C-alpha cells in the first residue's frame, strides 16, 4: 500500500465495543475510509451499523482498539464533520422553523452570545439552497414531509462547513422517488466531500456508493462490486447494485 496515511479520513483499527459486558456489539472491527470516498454501512438491525457510526464521531468510546478521525481523536476533530441524525429521533412538537434548524449548524462558528448575525443567516440559507429548500426557510420544521425533513437535516450538516458528511439512515421512510432524489443530491455533494452513511437496506445500495462496509458484529469492507442485476434495474427503474455477501459463505 502506497497511499499516504493522511489520505485516510477515518481509521478504525481492531475496535471492539459492548453496551453491556456480556453482549458485544462489535468485535475486532477494522475500517479505513479514504478522502473523497462514498462509504455505505449496511447490515441487519442490531448488527452495529449505527454503533460504528457513533464510535467514528466520538459519541461512544471503544472498549479496545483505536479510532482516528481526520488524523486525530474523534472528540477533537469531529467539529470538521457534518452529522445528520435519524430524523425520527427529533421531537416534532418542538416549535422551530426550518431556518432555525439549519442555523444550529453554525453554532460552533459564532461567538455564542446573542442572536445569529446576518452572515450566519446567509450561510444557512445557502446550505438550504444546496438541498433545494431555500423557499421553505420560514416553515415550521414539523410541517414538512419526511423527505424534506431529511434534506433540512442535511442542510444543517452542510452549514457546519464539513470535510466529511456522516448520515444515519438518510433514506429511512422515503419512497423510491425521494430516495433517488436524495442519492442524486449526495452524489453531487460527494464531488467536494467524503460521505459516510448508514443504510437500513441490506440488499441494495445506490450506484453512487463507492465502498460498502458490511457490519454484523464483524466488519467486512468491499469496493462496490460490478454486478448489477437487470431485474433490480427493472424493479427500481434505476441502476442499483447487488452487494455480494460472499464473505458469509466462506
Amino acid at each position, binding site marked *: 500500500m502506497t497511499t499516504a496515511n493522511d489520505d485516510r479520513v477515518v481509521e478504525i483499527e481492531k475496535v471492539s465495543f459492548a453496551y453491556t459486558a456480556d453482549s458485544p456489539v462489535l468485535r475486532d472491527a477494522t475500517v479505513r475510509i479514504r478522502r473523497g470516498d462514498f462509504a455505505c454501512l449496511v447490515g441487519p438491525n442490531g448488527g452495529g451499523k449505527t454503533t460504528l457510526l457513533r464510535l467514528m*464521531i466520538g*459519541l461512544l468510546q471503544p472498549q479496545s482498539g483505536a479510532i482516528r478521525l481526520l488524523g486525530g481523536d474523534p472528540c477533537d476533530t*469531529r*467539529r470538521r*464533520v457534518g*452529522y445528520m*441524525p435519524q430524523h425520527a*429521533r*427529533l*421531537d416534532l*412538537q*418542538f*416549535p*422551530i*422553523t426550518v431556518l*432555525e*434548524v439549519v*442555523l*444550529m*449548524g453554525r*453554532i*460552533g462558528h*459564532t461567538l*455564542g*452570545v*446573542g*442572536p*445569529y448575525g446576518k452572515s450566519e443567516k446567509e450561510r444557512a440559507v445557502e446550505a438550504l439552497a444546496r438541498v433545494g429548500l431555500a423557499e421553505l426557510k420560514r416553515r*415550521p420544521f414539523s410541517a414538512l414531509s419526511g423527505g424534506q425533513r431529511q434534506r433540512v437535516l442535511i442542510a*444543517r450538516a452542510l452549514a*457546519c462547513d464539513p470535510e466529511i458528511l456522516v448520515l444515519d439512515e438518510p433514506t429511512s421512510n422515503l419512497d423510491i422517488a425521494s430516495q433517488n432524489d436524495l442519492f442524486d443530491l449526495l452524489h453531487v455533494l460527494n464531488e467536494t466531500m467524503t460521505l459516510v452513511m448508514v443504510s437500513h437496506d441490506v440488499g441494495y445500495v445506490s450506484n453512487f456508493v463507492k465502498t460498502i462496509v458490511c457490519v454484523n458484529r464483524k466488519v467486512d469492507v468491499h469496493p462496490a462490486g460490478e454486478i448489477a442485476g437487470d431485474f433490480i434495474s427493472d424493479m427500481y427503474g434505476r441502476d442499483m447494485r447487488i452487494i455480494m455477501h460472499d464473505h458469509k459463505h466462506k
Partner: protein
Amino acid sequence: MEFFSAVLKYDFLMRAVATGLLASVACGIVGTYVVTRRITYIAGGIAHCVLGGMGAARYLQTVHGLGWAHPIYGAVVAALAAALIIGLVSLRAKEREDTVIGALWAIGMAVGVLFIHMTPGYNQELMSYLFGNILMVTKSNLWMLAALDALIVLAGVLFYNQFLAVCFDSEFALLRGMKTEMFYLLLLCLTALTVVLLITVVGIVLVIALLTLPVAVAGHFSRTLWQMMLISIGLSAIFTIGGLSLSFGPDLPAGAMTIVLAGGAYLLVLVGKRVFRFRTS
C-alpha cells in the same frame, strides 16, 4: 375595578402586582424551555425540595436567632442544590432518573415538615409555603425577586441559541463543540431560580401548573420558541394579575385562583380548537 383603585392605595397590593409581573417574565422564558425539553417532572422535583430549605431557614431564624436566614434564601439554596443533584444524576448516573427525582421530591418535603415541626410557635406559614401568599411580599423580598428575575431573563435571552440547541437536539450541539452538559445544568439552575420566584406567587404545590399551563396555551399559537416565550409571558401576567384581582373582593387565596384561571384557559383552548377543527372539516 375596586381592585385596581385599591392597588394604587395600598403598598402591599402594589408589591403583589409587581411580584406577579416579575414572576411572569421569568416564568414565560424558562417555562418554555422546560416544556419543550420535557422536564416538567424535574421542575416539580426541584419545587418540592424547596420546602426543606425553607423549613431549615425558618428553624435557624427562630430557634437559633439567625435573623438573616430568611426562608427565601433557604429556598434558593435548596432549589439550586436539587437542580444540580437531579441534573448530574440524569447526565451521569445509571440510576433510573424518575426514581431519583421522586425520591428527592419526597425527601425534600419530609425534611421541611420535620424542621417546621421543630420550630416553636403556630406555623401558619406552612400553608403559605405550599400554596403561596403573594400579599406577604415585603420590600426587601421584592428587591431580591427583581434581582433573581433580571438574572434569569439575562441568561435566558443571551444563551437563547444554546438553550434552543440543547432542547431540540443536544447530541448535535455536542458535536458542534458546545458544552451541552454545562448548558443543561445551567438551564436546570435557571429553572430552580424561577421556581423560587413562582413559589411566592402560587406556592410549592402549584408551581408546575404556572410554569407549564401558559406555555401549553401558547404552544397552540406559536411556531417558534421566542413567540412561545412572549405569548407565555403575556398569559402568565394575565393569569397572576387576574387571579389576584378576582380573589381580592371575596378574600380567596390568590395562588389557587391564578391556577384555576390558567387551567380554565388551557381547557378552553383545547375545546375551542376541537370545535373549530370540527366546523372547518
